[in-house]
C-alpha cells in the first residue's frame, strides 16, 4: 500500500529532529496566522490561483528567501563542524550526516535560491521593461512557478520523511547508483530537481517568447534595456541546456528505479557519460544565473551614475559571445577525466576566452561610472563589492583553466572558494542589488538604507573572511566535503577564520531581516508616490508603484533607448487615450498540476504504484481540462481603467 514507506523513515538523530521541529513550528505558525487573520480566502484568490507575473514574481522571491535561510544554516553547520572536528574531536555531525548537509546546501542554493531569485526578478521586471501588459503565456507561467515551489517542498520533505543523498549537489555516479546509495536520498534529489527543472524549462520558453514577441511597438532589439538583453541570453541558455538536465536525471532515475545500466559501474554502464551530460547542462547553468545579475548591474550603474550605459553594443555582443562560449567549456569541470592533452587544451583555452567578454562588461560598468554623478545607494554598494569579489574569483577561474594547474587543485577548497566568489559575489550580490533597486516598484515603498548598508558591510567583509582562507587551504591540499582532518596539518586556524566569516555573513542576513521589518513599519515615510523613486531611465519607472494589474494604461510607442529618461528631459505631456484591456482569469489548474507532480515524485521515491497512476491521471485530466477551456480572459473596459488611473493619481 505505501511501498517502501515505513515508520523508520520518520526516525532521525537529534540534530535532524531539531531541524524538523523548527520546520513544523514554522509551518504551524504560518497556518495559525492565516486562521487568526482569516486570510485563507485571500491566499487562495490573490496568490495561489493568480496568473499575474508580478504576484508570481513575489512568490518566487519569498520561496527563495525561505530556502536561503535554511540553506545558510546548513552552511553554518558545515563550517562549525570543520572548525572543531580536528584530531580526536569528531565534531557534532557524523560523516554521513555531514555529506547529506553538503548535498542539501548546494542543491538548495543553486536550484531553489539562485534560480528562484532569478525567475522572481524576471517575472517582476521583464514585462515592465519591454512595456508589455503580461507575459506570453500567463497560465504556463503560474504552472512553472508551482512546479518550482513543489520541487522545493519535495526537497524539504526529505528532511521530514527519509533522507537526502550523501552524494554532493550533482550526485555523481556510480556513488549515486543503487549499489552504493541504496536509500531514498538520491531519489529525493532527482525528483525535486526534475520537477523544479521542468518548471524552469517552461519558464525559459515563456520568457523567450515574451521578449521576442511582446515588446512595445518601436522597441527594436537594440533598444531593449540591458537587463532584458541579459535575460534573453539567459533564457536561450535555459531552453538549450535544461532539456539535457531533464534527460540526464531521467536516465539516472531509470538506473535506480528500473535497474537500467546507463551510469552503473557494471553491465557496460559509463559513469563519465553522466558527468559529461550533467556539465553540458551545468556550465551553461552558471551563466544562466550570472547573466541576469550582469543585467541588473547594468541598470543600477546607469541609473545611479545618471549616465547612459557605456558601450551598449559591446555589452550586447559580450552577452551573445558568452551564450555561445558557455557551451564549449564544460569539460573544464573534469580535466582529470583523462580525455587527453589536446581535448584538455581546447577546453582550457575556451575557458580563458570566455573571461574576455566578462572582462569587457566590467570595464563598461566602470566607464559608465566615469564622470557620472554617482550616488552611493545600497544597490550601488553591492555593485562595487561585486567588482572586487568577482575579479578575485575570475582570476582564480582563469588560473584553473590551465589544465596542469587544475590537476593540482581539482576538487579542493580552492575550487570551492572560486565558485563561491562567482556565485555569492556575482549572482547573489547582483540579485540583492536588484531586489533593493526594484523593491519600491513592486511594493510601493523604499527599503531602509541604513540597515541595507549594515547588511552590505557584513556580507562583504564576512564573505572575504569566509572564503579567502579556503583558497589557502585548497593550496595546502584540503579537499571539499571534508568532515574531519588531522591536527598535524595545521588547518584549524584558517577553518576557524572561515567559520567567523560565516558568522559575519549571518549577521548581514540578520540586518536584512531587520531592514525588511523596519521598512514595512516605516513604509509611509518612504512611500514612492511618483513611480520613479530613483530618477530611472527605463519603462518600468513610467508606471505607478505598486504596478496596476494591467501594467500600463496606454501603450505609447518607443522611439529610443532609455526612452523614459528622454521623455522626462523633454517633459512632453502625452494625450492619454484609454482602451479596453484583456486580462487572464485566475485559475487553480497550474497549482493543481504541480501538486500532482509532487505526488508523482513522492510516489516514485517510495515506490507507491497506485499513487503514481493517480498522479499521472490527474495531470492528464487537468491539462485536458485547461486546454479545452476557451473562457480564460476577462475585459477591463476603458472606463474602468480610467477610473483606476485617476484614483491612483489622486492618492
Amino acid at each position, binding site marked *: 500500500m505505501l511501498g517502501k514507506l515505513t515508520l523508520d523513515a520518520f526516525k532521525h538523530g537529534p540534530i535532524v529532529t531539531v531541524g524538523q521541529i523548527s520546520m513544523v513550528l514554522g509551518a504551524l505558525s504560518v497556518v495559525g496566522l492565516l486562521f487568526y487573520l482569516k486570510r485563507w480566502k485571500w491566499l487562495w484568490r490573490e496568490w495561489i490561483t493568480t496568473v499575474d507575473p508580478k504576484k508570481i514574481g513575489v512568490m518566487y522571491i519569498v520561496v527563495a528567501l525561505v530556502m536561503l535561510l535554511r540553506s545558510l544554516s546548513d552552511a553554518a553547520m558545515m563550517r562549525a563542524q570543520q572548525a572543531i572536528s580536528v584530531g580526536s574531536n569528531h565534531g557534532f555531525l557524523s560523516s554521513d550526516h555531514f555529506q547529506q548537509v553538503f548535498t542539501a546546501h548546494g542543491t538548495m542554493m543553486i536550484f531553489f535560491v539562485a534560480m528562484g531569485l532569478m525567475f522572481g526578478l524576471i517575472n517582476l521586471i521583464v514585462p515592465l521593461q519591454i512595456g508589455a501588459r503580461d507575459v506570453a*503565456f500567463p497560465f504556463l507561467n503560474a504552472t512553472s512557478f508551482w512546479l518550482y515551489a513543489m520541487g522545493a517542498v519535495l526537497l524539504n520533505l526529505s528532511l521530514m520523511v527519509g533522507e537526502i543523498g550523501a552524494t554532493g549537489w550533482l550526485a555523481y555516479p556510480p556513488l549515486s547508483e543503487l549499489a552504493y546509495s541504496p536509500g531514498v536520498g538520491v531519489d529525493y534529489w532527482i525528483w525535486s530537481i526534475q520537477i523544479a527543472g521542468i518548471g524552469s524549462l517552461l519558464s525559459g520558453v515563456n520568457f523567450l*517568447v515574451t521578449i521576442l514577441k511582446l515588446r512595445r511597438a518601436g522597441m527594436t532589439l537594440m533598444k531593449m534595456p540591458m537587463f532584458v538583453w541579459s535575460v534573453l541570453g539567459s533564457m536561450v541558455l535555459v531552453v538549450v541546456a535544461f*532539456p*539535457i538536465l531533464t*534527460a540526464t536525471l531521467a536516465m539516472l532515475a531509470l*538506473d535506480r528505479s528500473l535497474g*537500467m*545500466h546507463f551510469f552503473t559501474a557494471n553491465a*557496460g554502464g559509463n559513469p563519465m557519460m553522466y558527468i559529461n551530460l550533467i556539465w553540458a547542462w551545468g556550465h551553461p547553468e552558471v551563466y544562466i544565473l550570472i547573466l541576469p545579475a550582469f543585467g541588473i548591474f547594468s541598470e543600477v550603474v546607469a541609473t545611479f551614475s545618471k549616465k547612459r550605459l557605456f558601450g551598449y553594443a559591446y555589452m550586447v555582443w559580450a552577452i551573445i559571445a558568452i551564450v555561445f562560449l558557455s557551451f564549449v567549456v564544460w569539460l573544464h569541470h573534469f580535466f582529470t577525466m583523462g580525455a587527453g592533452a589536446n581535448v584538455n587544451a581546447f577546453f582550457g583555452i575556451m575557458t580563458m576566452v570566455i573571461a574576455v567578454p566578462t572582462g569587457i562588461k566590467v570595464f563598461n560598468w566602470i566607464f559608465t561610472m566615469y564622470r557620472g554623478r554617482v550616488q552611493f545607494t545600497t544597490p550601488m554598494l553591492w555593485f562595487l563589492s561585486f567588482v572586487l569579489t568577482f575579479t578575485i574569483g575570475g582570476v582564480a577561474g582563469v588560473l584553473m583553466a590551465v589544465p596542469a594547474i587544475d590537476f593540482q587543485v581539482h576538487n579542493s577548497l580552492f575550487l570551492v572558494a572560486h565558485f563561491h566568489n562567482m556565485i555569492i559575489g556575482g549572482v547573489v550580490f547582483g540579485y540583492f542589488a536588484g531586489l533593493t533597486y526594484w523593491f519600491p516598484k513592486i511594493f510601493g515603498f523604499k527599503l531602509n538604507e541604513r540597515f541595507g548598508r549594515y547588511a552590505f558591510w557584513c556580507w562583504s567583509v564576512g564573505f572575504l573572511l569566509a572564503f579567502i582562507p579556503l583558497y589557502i587551504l585548497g593550496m595546502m591540499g584540503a579537499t571539499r566535503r571534508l568532515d574531519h582532518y588531522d591536527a598535524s596539518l595545521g588547518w584549524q586556524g584558517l577553518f576557524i577564520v572561515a567559520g567567523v566569516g560565516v558568522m559575519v555573513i549571518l549577521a548581514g542576513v540578520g540586518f536584512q531581516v531587520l531592514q525588511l521589518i523596519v521598512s514595512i513599519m516605516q513604509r509611509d515615510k518612504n512611500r514612492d508616490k511618483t513611480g520613479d523613486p530613483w530618477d530611472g531611465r527605463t519603462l518600468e519607472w513610467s508606471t505607478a508603484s505598486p504596478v496596476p494589474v494591467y501594467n500600463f494604461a496606454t501603450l505609447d510607442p518607443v522611439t529610443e533607448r532609455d526612452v523614459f529618461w528622454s521623455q522626462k528631459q523633454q517633459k512632453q505631456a502625452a494625450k492619454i487615450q484609454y482602451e479596453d484591456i484583456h486580462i487572464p482569469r485566475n485559475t487553480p489548474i497550474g497549482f493543481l498540476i504541480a501538486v500532482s507532480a509532487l505526488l508523482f515524485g513522492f510516489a516514485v521515491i517510495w515506490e507507491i504504484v497506485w499513487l503514481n497512476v493517480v498522479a499521472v491521471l490527474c495531470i492528464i485530466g487537468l491539462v485536458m481540462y485547461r486546454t479545452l477551456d*476557451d473562457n480564460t480572459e476577462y475585459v477591463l473596459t476603458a472606463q474602468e481603467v480610467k477610473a483606476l488611473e485617476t484614483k491612483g493619481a489622486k492618492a
Partner: protein
Amino acid sequence: MKTPPAQLDKTTFGFWLYLMTDCVLFASLFATFAVLRANTAGGPSGKDIFDLPFVLTETVLLLTSSFTSGMALLAARAKVHKQVFFWLSATFLLGAAFLFMEMREFTHIVSEGHGWRMSAFLSSFFTLVGTHGAHIAVGLIWMFVMMFRFSASKISANDLRRLTLFTMFWHFLDIVWIFIFTIVYMFGALS
C-alpha cells in the same frame, strides 16, 4: 472567442521553441545511445535482436500518418468539416498501429530474455525508442480529444490552432523516428 493573429503567432512560436527543447532532449538520448551501443556486456547486440522488415513496416505506418495529419490540417483550413474527422481518424489509427507494433517488438525482445536490465546497450535502446513511443502515446490522447471537438461543433479558431500545433508535433516525431530508424536500427543491424 476569436483568437487574434498575434496570439496565434506567439503560441505557434512558443510551441516551436518547446519542440526544439524536445529536440535537445532526444539529442541527449541519442548521444548516450551512441556512447553505450557497443557496451553489450555479454548480451545481444543490435544485429541479434532487430527485425528490419518489421521496423520498416512501422516506419511506413508512421510516415503515412504524418501525411494524413497534414491532410487533416488542409481540410480544417478549407473548413471541410467531415474530411477533418476522416483524416484525423486515419492518423489516429495509423499512430495506434505504430505504437502497437512497437510494443509487440518490445515484449518480444523482453520475452527472449533481453530486458533493459541486461546491458547498457539495451538500457539506452529501450529508453530512446520508448521515449519516442511515449510521445506518440501523448499524441494519440491529444488526437482523441480533438476528434471529439471536430465531430461535435464547427471549427473554431482555437480548434484550428490546436490542430496546427498538433501537426507540428506529429511531424517532429516523424523526423525523430527517421533518425531512430537510421541510427538505431539500420546501423545496428548492419554493423
